[in-house]
């Protein structure tokens, strides 16, 4: 951007801030993934008209624009890879209205997802999507990346709860999609197209979210297995028996050991896998389901079943799962967190493939994640200053993606494509499939100013982690 450009930006932004100092530009150059990309300017304003005017200006001058929440993204979504302007939408955090009668929440994009959880719960309602980062990630970012979370199994992901949007198009117009009704079949479903488009089709400035009545009770079951494949069978047994847990989480032996080293919680370190279930619903039904789930786990070889008896004990069990991420980075500093997802029935095979990949490339690979919906998190723990190791890690990651796609799964269950997985898109979608997506992008954003460099691979682009 030229200094004349910056001046024009400053003349448009009347109510907010335009940051151009080097320290500020560097502070908006990263996210939770890899790489540093300097924007030319960072804009903070709560005013939608000003933002729209900025986009119009950017479209005219072919200046890239990147919407950004709190940049907790793990796939590179908000990175300003081609310079230009970052719009810090975390400042748009004022609007959070809960309508009990319509069972919806109306929010601005900078609202923290956890604040939506709290506000809904105060009225006896539930906003189900619960990414692990919800206390720090914004709802705008969640919508852009179509975030998931442990409750995805029963309740689905972010897109299943967004029913209406206000959006700035890449040409600087403000439009509305969907509305306040759950049923809405008027025309193409642009709402679903925008959610998960990773900021490449526009900037979400307001959203209507669907809420549910909060289930009256919940119970937790922990099942311990000597064999990872048995744990996989337990998952499909429970689901095919007609029980739909709210969460169904898997920890492999490496994760269990890491957590116990990090903070001893009395987990069985000799077990090959642990499954954690959360069941929610009516207390009477729950009692029966807990019993049934425990029996099913035993029938496929669970060596131990633990059922916490009160809220404190339940929290302790879930704490173990939450500690996996912090625990594993104590082993080595760099963490490559993948979210390759396979059909549930393929979980045991995926686990086997992951073990082969671990041995083949001699990498420290840990598996945990949302097993109930096939959304595993193979994590590779490494040291990015070790070039030789990172080279092996890159190959291992590529092979994880291949395995997931070959088993009928997908590159990403909840983190998005961003810059990290763009090189693998064609493998999953095929040439024509990817081309259809590109045509949508070209129709919406003819000048390719809206979050360029994401989702679609550049010619010759490869996964680079070092």
């Amino acid at each position, binding site marked *: 951007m030229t200094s004349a450009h910056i001046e024009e930006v400053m003349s448009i932004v009347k109510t907010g801030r335009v940051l151009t100092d080097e320290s500020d530009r560097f502070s908006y*150059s990263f996210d939770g993934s890899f790489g540093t990309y300097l924007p030319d300017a960072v804009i903070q304003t709560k005013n939608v008209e000003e933002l729209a005017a900025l986009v119009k200006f950017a479209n005219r001058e072919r200046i890239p624009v990147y919407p950004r929440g709190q940049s907790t993204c793990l796939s590179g979504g908000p990175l300003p890879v081609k310079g230009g302007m970052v719009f810090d939408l975390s*400042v748009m955090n004022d609007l959070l209205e809960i309508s009990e009668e319509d069972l919806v929440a109306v929010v601005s994009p900078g609202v923290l997802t956890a604040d939506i959880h709290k506000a809904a719960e105060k009225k006896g309602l539930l906003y189900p999507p619960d990414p692990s980062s919800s206390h720090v990630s914004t709802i705008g970012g969640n919508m852009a990346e179509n975030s998931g979370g442990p409750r995805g199994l029963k309740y689905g992901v972010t897109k299943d709860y967004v029913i209406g949007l206000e959006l700035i198009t890449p040409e600087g117009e403000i439009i509305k999609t969907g509305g306040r009704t759950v049923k809405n079949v008027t025309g193409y479903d642009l709402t679903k197209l925008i959610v998960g488009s990773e900021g490449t089709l526009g900037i979400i400035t307001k959203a209507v979210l669907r809420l549910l009545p909060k289930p009256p009770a919940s119970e937790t079951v922990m099942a311990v297995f000597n064999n990872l494949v048995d744990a996989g069978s337990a998952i499909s047994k429970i689901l095919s028996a007609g029980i739909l847990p709210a969460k169904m989480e898997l920890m492999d032996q490496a994760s269990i050991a890491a957590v116990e080293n990090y903070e001893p919680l009395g987990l069985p370190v000799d077990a090959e896998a642990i499954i954690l279930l959360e069941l929610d619903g009516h207390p009477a039904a729950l009692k029966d389901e807990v019993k049934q789930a425990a029996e099913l786990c035993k029938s496929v070889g669970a060596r131990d079943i633990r059922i916490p008896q009160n809220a404190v004990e339940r929290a302790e069990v879930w704490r173990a799962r939450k500690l996996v991420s912090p625990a594993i980075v*104590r082993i080595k500093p760099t963490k490559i967190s993948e979210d390759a997802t396979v059909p549930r029935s393929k979980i045991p095979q995926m686990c086997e493939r992951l073990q082969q990949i671990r041995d083949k490339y001699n990498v420290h690979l840990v598996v945990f994640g949302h097993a109930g919906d096939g959304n595993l998190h193979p994590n590779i723990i490494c040291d990015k200053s070790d070039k030789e190791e990172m080279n092996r890690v890159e190959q291992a990651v590529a092979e994880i993606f291949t395995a997931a796609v070959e088993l009928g799964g997908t590159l990403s269950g909840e983190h998005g494509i961003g810059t990290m997985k763009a090189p693998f898109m064609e493998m999953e979608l095929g040439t024509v499939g990817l081309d259809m997506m590109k045509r949508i992008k070209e129709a919406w954003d003819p000048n390719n100013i809206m979050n360029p460099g994401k989702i679609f691979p550049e010619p010759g682009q490869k996964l680079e982690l070092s």
Partner: protein
Amino acid sequence: MSQSLEQLQKEFLYEKTNSCVQCGYCLPVCPTYATMGKETHSPRGRINLVKMVGEGKIKDVSVLEEPLDLCLGCRACETACPTGVEYGSILEAARAALVRRKKFSAPVRLLRKTMFKKVFPSSRMMKLTGNALWLYQKSGIQKVVQSSGIMKKLPYHLGDFEAIAPPAVSPAERKQTPVRVGAKGEKKYTVAFFTGCIMDAMFQRINRLSVLLLAEAGCDVIVVPNQTCCGALHAHSGEMEEARHLAKQNIIAFEKANADFIVNNAGGCGAMLYEYGHLLADDKEWADRAAAFSTKSRDISQVLIACGGMPDLQPRSGERVTYQRSCHMTNVQKVVREPLELLTNVPGIKFVEMEEANMCCGSAGIYNIVHYDESMDILDEKMKHTKATGASTVITTNPGCLLQMKLGIQRENLSGSVRAMHLIEYLAEAAGIS
């Protein structure tokens, strides 16, 4: 000065920044991110800036000055961090590296030298300061000055602070401070009392009450001679050599006492004493002695609880009390339970926890003086939550927090109905000790 990348990486502790996975979990707990509203003033942002220096992407290190200067050093980010990033060490090292490169103007250089090398470390200078304060308050000058409006013209908003300064202790009274007090009843521990520089100059009364309360709870208390400033203000300003020098002086002084515990009553000083081991870890000659010192260091609340709590407290009549935690006690010393236990054990009080109780009040050493406006933004947030509790007494455990909360009360025009007190003052009041 050499600017080779290796040199910069070493000085700025680049290695330590690698454990930051940029997850952003530190953002919601950072007071400056909340009030200043940009990533540049967040822990993750600051760590990234240091990282960029280490990767050679930022060439002019002076761009780090403002973001690092404006950090309160409350270290709430360390408590929130899932991967154990040593933010405090990174901040300290980066500040020291910047100070080494910075060309201060002549008056600032002189002021820094005077304050860091002559005033805080000198018990004589601190006594003089305390005496001057007493003279100022008692001689009638204060009244004249306050009515003259001259206070408004002082630099750094010092006038605002003048009005909240605690009643000073007379030179005669100062001399009466006991140097050795025997335990009342059965003796449980022998403790050496750390007086601190600012505590000694401005809050001498709290120090005296601390000694009396410790004795009341069952401790033989020794006020060790030749002790000096803890060095926290120096370390936080990047004057590491001076901080180490002071630490060694304290280690020597307290080794002689051979006490069970080294007790302090100021969260900020306590954190520094607690970290002497870390401060001198690379110094072969001193590492073990420093670690032994830190192992013995305790906040007074820990010792009072270890003694079984305060005996014989008079019941209060349903007084509403809230508690502003000292960041350094919470996030560095991890002393969380004991002060609260002492407070809530006072019979008859109604304890009300404030929202965002763990957020810094904005005092942070001399932050509220050198970054007045930024500090007041943070204080305003704190006062919003304090007011919401409806408490008439705000308890703190650090002199800086105490002054800051007094200032907050004054700014909100609540001086008639709300008071701020150190936990020790409150316990002494409840125990009928004055």
